């Protein structure tokens, strides 16, 4: 009587098949083995990077570092940006593992700055770099994306100035002198003869510029070149500025209507590259990192293109912009911050690596003293013998300032939506002149501004008093 429940359990157990008992045994055994023979955490310090081409350049140097400093050896991990963002934030905010050194892309860093200062999981490197005299070696505008409330959370990897790459073979064959181009107006006027060539349906065979209404990076670069953008230098939302409206109206006047001069040839796509190769696109905005990708993806362009400073928005205006960027930083929970800083200095203040990075990626460093290295003055056959490095370096000091906030991506999306809406308005009303489009551009940007401002106002962490 007393054992009846046990008898029932015994009977129930007999009802199960042998397979279930085998599975149960395997599960219990494997769990026990995992408890007894714990996998030791990997030895050494960890370094997370998001860009394959960066890491490929670093790997020989990291191997050299590990040979010299076995007590501070680093393991490198390549993690795609979206995963890196999630893992890093999770580590900063929830205590999951973080690396000892991390390279972060600009679109990610804003989310790190999204909360209160004590929750920023990176070490303020400003005082350390200043004490060692490193800060003054760095290109000042390149520090802005990694600075938040006066603190510098990373060493810039790059500058990423933007130049204009154009089909020199076609431009020169048409007898066009690019030295006469100083502004975007000059560009449209001087290059216009290239659009005279039409197909059987009367459409131009060539377009002057690679820009379109949903091209986020292109629109952002042009806004910044003009002195606009989504946030001003103090981090205040500035979507509805007069400058932004003028740039957007001009971009839309380029991309639609009977006198359109622009075409969409997306970067890093087969169809876009084909348009560049067959000369449908005459000129493209080209940051230094993209030049490296062109060299590997479109080698047939070699010798056909040249670089020039961007045409300015007004006479005497800025002849460059900025696009992309990355930094290297040390998480607060790094196991050995001193070793991490030494490793960062070894990588980023190493002229040998700067040369290697430029040769493999075309990226110029943010360390100004390296700009005199001979490699940057070498004629580049891809750019028709021009010293591509020096052309980018010549504009590096003038790249626009950028701040990073958690609302960067959202704000830029709204600006792109405003551009698309403006294009729809242009097509609906037959308004294609930039001046005529200006009031609607202002209206669309005011709407975008209010949407983003609403989200920011609701967020207690983005209020100035928080």
């Amino acid at each position: 009587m007393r054992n009846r429940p046990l008898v029932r359990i015994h009977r129930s157990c007999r009802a199960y098949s042998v397979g279930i008992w085998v599975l149960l045994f395997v599960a219990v055994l494997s769990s026990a083995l995992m408890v007894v023979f714990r996998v030791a955490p990997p030895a050494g310090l960890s370094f997370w990077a998001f860009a394959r081409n960066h890491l490929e350049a670093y790997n020989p140097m990291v191997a050299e570092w590990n040979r010299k400093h076995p007590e501070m050896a680093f393991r490198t991990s390549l993690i795609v940006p979206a995963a890196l963002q999630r893992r890093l934030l999770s580590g900063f905010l929830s205590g999951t593992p973080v690396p000892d050194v991390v390279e972060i892309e600009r679109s990610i860093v804003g989310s790190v700055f999204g909360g209160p200062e004590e929750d920023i999981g990176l070490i303020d490197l400003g005082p350390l770099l200043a004490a060692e005299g490193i800060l003054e070696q760095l290109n000042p505008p390149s520090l802005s994306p990694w600075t938040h409330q006066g603190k510098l959370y990373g060493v810039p990897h790059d500058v990423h100035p933007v130049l204009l790459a154009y089909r020199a073979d076609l431009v020169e064959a048409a007898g066009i002198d690019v030295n006469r181009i100083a502004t975007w107006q000059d560009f449209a006027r001087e290059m216009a003869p290239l659009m005279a060539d039409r197909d059987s349906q009367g459409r131009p065979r060539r377009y002057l510029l690679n820009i379109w209404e949903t091209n986020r990076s292109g629109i952002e670069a042009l806004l910044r070149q003009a002195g606009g953008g989504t946030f001003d230098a103090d981090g205040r939302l500035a979507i509805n500025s007069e400058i932004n409206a003028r740039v957007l109206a001009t971009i839309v006047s380029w991309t639609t209507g009977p006198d359109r001069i622009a075409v969409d040839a997306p970067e890093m796509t087969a169809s876009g590259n084909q348009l560049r190769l067959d000369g449908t696109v005459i000129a493209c905005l080209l940051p230094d990192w993209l030049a490296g990708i062109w060299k590997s993806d479109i080698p047939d362009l070699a010798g056909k293109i040249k670089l020039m400073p961007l045409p300015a928005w007004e006479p005497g205006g800025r002849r460059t912009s900025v696009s992309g960027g990355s930094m290297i930083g040390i998480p607060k929970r790094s196991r050995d911050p001193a070793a991490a800083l030494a490793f960062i200095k070894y990588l980023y203040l190493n002229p040998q690596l700067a040369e290697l990075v430029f040769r493999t990626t075309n990226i110029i460093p943010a360390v100004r003293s390296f700009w005199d290295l001979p490699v940057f003055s070498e004629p580049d056959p891809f750019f028709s013998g021009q010293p591509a490095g020096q052309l980018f370096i010549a504009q590096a000091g003038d790249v626009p300032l950028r701040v990073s906030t958690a609302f960067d991506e959202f704000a830029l999306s709204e600006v792109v939506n405003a551009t698309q809406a403006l294009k729809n308005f242009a097509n609906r009303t037959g308004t294609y002149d930039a001046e005529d489009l200006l009031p609607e551009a202002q209206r669309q940007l005011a709407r975008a501004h209010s949407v983003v401002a609403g989200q920011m106002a609701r967020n207690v962490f983005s209020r100035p008093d928080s």
Partner: protein
Amino acid sequence: MSRQSSTSAWVPWLFLTPFLLTFAVFSIVPLGQAVILAAQQTFGPNTTVFVGFDNFRFLATDPLFWTAVRNTTLYAAGAVFLQLPLSLGLALLLNRPNLRGRMIFRAIFFAPSLVGLVFVAVIFSLIFEKRTGLLNVLLHGLIPAFDVEFPWLQEYVLPALIIAALWMFTGFNMVYFLAALQNVSRDLEDAATVDGAGPWQRFRHVILPAIRPVGAFVVLLALIGSFQLFELPWILLAGPGPENRGLTIVMYLYQIGFVTNDLGYSSAVGWMLAFLLASFAVAHRFFSRKEQY
């Protein structure tokens, strides 16, 4: 006797314990936390500010949320009013006993649902691409005046999403209808035929009432699936699309929660979605009961 009944009372609980524990840990506790989260603004688990109903108040006037609701509702309407009739039509065709190669057709129509949404999105992004996309090349080949640069994914965002979903889910829903049709009494159909009913009358008065419970279930499934739409537009449009015309509720939830890291507001959006889906389920239950009595 009382001792026996007391021991037999705890034995079922003993067996239920593993389920109850996992259910509590992985469902009840997170649900409770999500309720709390919806009343907070957060930056990670350690930094939280209680904001009461502010998240819901903002939601009521948030233009982006209502854009997402509008887009999702239109997509769901497309799923229900285009996809399901098409599925039913295919099922009716494939249910004909004299159709040759029935099994092959069934396999062909069902095959797209074996492919993941991500792959469907990639395939359709290639089909709708300007200049080199299959659709534009085909149309330009047939009608030379057709602009090969026509931007489908900018001009017709929702129709493009509905077409992609149509390709994927029509065959899947067809299987439900086919199963229901095979349970329709042949005697009833024959009796209706003898009584002089034509094909439409047989469909209207015999087949449709017989498959209605399955139809209602498929509608519910389609609605729930539509309101959870995320991967298809996210990949096909590389984001919410031009002017947010491809923004869905779940995509908005993701953007807030994981791009701007505002899990509190994201949780409020999640609760609104849960409320919508629950209301569909309740409506389904209500109408199903009504039919039974």
